């Protein structure tokens, strides 16, 4: 039987994107999507893009991956999310078209 697919969504401060994408890639994901403009509030107060600096901008990362990979992403992201602003959730995917399973990045 095929491993269940998960949808990992991470809101993260933009400056931490390179580190996060490295973690995601190393965890074995075959792809990811980044929506580069997001703002919001959380424990660190309001974060809105300043335009002249990346420092207050958030981004949204979406990763569709098998449960095992999703777990490794979650584990790998935890220390990053302690230092940098962000939140990560994992949710079920019922069906998926277009994911190339064998190929890691």
């Amino acid at each position, binding site marked *: 039987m095929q491993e269940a697919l998960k949808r990992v969504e991470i809101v993260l401060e933009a400056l931490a994107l390179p580190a996060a994408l490295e973690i995601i890639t190393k965890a074995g994901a075959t792809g990811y999507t980044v929506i580069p403009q997001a703002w919001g509030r959380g424990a660190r107060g309001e974060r809105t893009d300043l335009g002249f600096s*990346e420092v*207050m901008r958030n981004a949204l990362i979406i990763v569709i991956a098998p449960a095992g990979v999703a777990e490794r992403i979650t584990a790998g992201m935890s220390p990053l999310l302690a230092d940098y602003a962000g939140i990560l959730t994992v949710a079920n995917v019922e069906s998926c078209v277009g994911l190339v399973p064998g190929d890691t990045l």
Partner: protein
Amino acid sequence: MQGLLATAGENLVSPAILFFALGVVAGLVRSELAVPKELTAGLSLYLLLAIGFRGGAELAREGVSLAFLAAALAGLVLGLIVLPGVAFAALRKLGRVDPVNAGAIAAHYGSISVVTFATASTFLARAGVPHEGFMTAIMALMEAPGVLGGILLARMSGHQKPAEPGRIGAALRETLLGTAPTLLLGSLAIGALTGGKGMELMAPFLVDPFQGVLSVFLLDMGLTAGRRLGDFARMGRFLIFFGIAMPVLAGILGVLVARVVSLSVGGATLFAVLAASASYIAAPAAVRLALPQARPDLAITLSLGITFPFNILLGIPLYFALAHRIIQG
């Protein structure tokens, strides 16, 4: 003296300053007025490019002199060691700020503010006061060292989690290869290479509309600062005091050092402005990467919300008056 006061007063009614004030007021009353952030990014690219290019062209006209090298050295020492050190000590001893946030703030004040520099250049031009053409190059050189100085102070204070080497690397890259240093130094080099001919080609884009673009950018900075004014309450009185006392102290220091390296009145004013101004374009990202435990909003609110308005409204004429008295007197 009366002439100086008049100059200061005139500074306050220049369009760029008034657009900043409009932004602050609009931000305070929560107007819907907002500049799309992609446009803000574009405006800051324009300003960095224009300022760098003009500085390069001026450098080409003058050539590299001993005076330049002396001023550059003085700027480096000031930015890397003296300014971050003074800021860090004041924040730690007088303000009892934790070492990480003290280092983060010191990094912003060790570095320079390109837009404050541009506003000061306009001020001098309107007052008819000449200055050394190499001052923009000095500014470009002073952007990175202060950031590094502040970061090092925070890290040396030892209360910090063991450094992840990857993050220090990322911070170093950001200091040298971030948007601001790349564009400022690159444009400076191109301006120096193409000289007067290049300037002629680019002037209708880089020089003629400069005041207008600066005004729109300052309007936007005013909006950002105005919306943050509420944060001051939560920031504590010491930090507000620091945001004004630090530039005054650094400005005085700047004029004195400028005298040692024999800058003109105009050059000394700009040198003082470099010392007194705090970065909010280049420093925040590098500091954030190196010191994630520091609160980024604190340093930005201080440098953009307090020190920047102080400098462009009162600081610049003050440093000019000082330079006038100490250098020419």
